[in-house]
């Protein structure tokens, strides 16, 4: 009987997480359009509903009702698979993000995380590496030069920044002594790691922005050079899935920044889930402001930043952290 209850609880957790994520993704689009407009002294969407609040719903209807085109020269199976890979990997990363402390339900402790993997951090990296396949395969299967260029750029960029992303989190793992996201959050009950590891934080945010293909690292899309890059040939909801994946990725990034550096759900007065959401929101706003400010990097600058600055910096950071930990003990 116990495992049935566990199954039901898991289903409820999955449904709530998925619903909140998709709703938040669509309203993140609204927030981005609105805030970006204000940064550029425009108004942004304001026709659909008050303050344009119904705009995401209208956009979803538009994407769902548009024709789903598959180019004649494309590889249909991979072409149809690629957007799902991007959206799915982004969504699945949330499975290990803890949204609060354990709660009691009918005398049973229920962890406020879908699954508390003891290798949660590696799971996150594995999925974010798999996400590259969506971009690269989408670009390749489209059989279009712009899409192919975007896909190649995406693969090269994301592989380069994956290294810096992983290395920047090694000091966090050293401090927390665990790969589990729940335990990393618990380790920050006193002091969030942003104060102990500011360099790691900066490297992580920069390389995570590169991972999520946002301006100033949006070379795989680069609409001025490549049309729309890897999703040039996509239409309708398949394009919508790429779009969804991008915005879920922003939330993943926000959640990871919160979990690894801002103390996760820890915070005074407000409920834990609200704190986590606030931190994700904060990171998203920062990313939108960055998008409104910075120009796109040149490709060689992008590679130089990744390989010559971020990776050496994170390696030095690991060594220094190790030295200080040795001195401390």
């Amino acid at each position, binding site marked *: 009987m116990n495992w049935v209850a566990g199954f039901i609880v898991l289903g409820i957790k999955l449904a709530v997480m998925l619903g909140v994520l998709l709703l938040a993704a669509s309203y993140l689009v609204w927030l981005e359009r609105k805030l970006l407009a*204000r940064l550029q002294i*425009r108004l942004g969407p304001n026709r659909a509903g008050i303050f344009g609040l119904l705009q995401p719903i209208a956009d979803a209807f538009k994407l769902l009702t548009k024709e789903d085109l598959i180019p004649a020269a494309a590889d249909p199976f991979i072409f149809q698979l690629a957007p799902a890979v991007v959206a799915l990997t982004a969504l699945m990363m949330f499975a290990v993000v803890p949204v609060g402390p354990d709660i009691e339900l009918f005398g049973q402790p229920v962890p406020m995380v879908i699954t508390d993997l003891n290798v949660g951090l590696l799971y996150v990296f594995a999925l974010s590496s798999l996400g590259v396949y969506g971009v690269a395969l989408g670009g390749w299967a489209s059989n279009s030069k712009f899409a192919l260029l975007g896909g190649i750029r995406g693969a090269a960029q994301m592989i380069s920044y994956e290294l810096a992303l992983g290395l920047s989190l090694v000091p966090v793992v050293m401090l927390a002594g665990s790969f589990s996201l729940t335990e990393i959050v618990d380790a920050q009950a006193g002091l969030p790691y942003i104060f102990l590891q500011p360099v790691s934080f900066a490297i992580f945010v920069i390389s995570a922005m590169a991972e999520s293909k946002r301006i100033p690292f949006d070379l795989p899309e680069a609409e001025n050079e490549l049309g729309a890059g890897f999703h040039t040939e996509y239409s309708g909801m398949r394009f919508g899935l790429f779009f969804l994946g991008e915005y879920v990725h922003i939330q993943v990034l926000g959640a990871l920044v919160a979990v690894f550096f801002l103390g996760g759900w820890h915070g005074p007065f407000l409920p834990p889930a609200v704190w986590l959401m606030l931190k994700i929101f904060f990171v998203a706003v920062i990313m939108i402001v960055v998008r409104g400010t910075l120009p796109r990097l040149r490709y060689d600058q992008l590679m130089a930043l990744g390989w010559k600055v971020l990776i050496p910096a994170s390696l030095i950071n690991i060594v220094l952290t190790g030295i200080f930990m040795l001195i401390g003990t």
Partner: protein
Amino acid sequence: MAKEEHNNAKHLPPPVDNSPWSAMKALVDGFATTLKHLARKPITEQYPEYKRKLPERSRARIVLTRDPDGGERCVACYLCSAACPVSCISMQSAEKEDGRRYARWFRINFGRCIYCGLCEEACPTSAIQLTPDFENIQRDILTMVFEKQDLLVDGCGKDPDYNFYQYAGVATGTGEKGTHAREDKPVNVKSNMP
């Protein structure tokens, strides 16, 4: 050669500062600019509620204007039709009893029109003119075909005083030969010997 190099060096751009410090300064400047603009009032004009007055020479809906005395200006010379790059103007010319030419029918297919204004430039009588009224949208494309009665307006448009037949030198209802503006009396070529 040495002198040339010296001259070239003078026109070189100043050396680019690539130091990390200048990069940081550029970042701070950039974010300060965007945050400053966040506090500014949007400059958007909300179109259907607020309609900016367009310049009078802006090119939109085409009209056929009239003489100052109210007659149709168009003399059905087909020049607009010939100038039209998308062939959206068609007409049938005819002549009145007094010799004045007019269009029996005149048709502009606004479904094709690209509002380039070449018809207006080609028109010798200032009859066909583009107006700033751009809100010409129909659900049915066939209703975009405007006939002469849809195109004719009262008034002279951008050329208020011009009356083609006052200058044309053609004997029509406006007067006999030699009575038009800036026109000499007709010369009897038989008696004009040196």
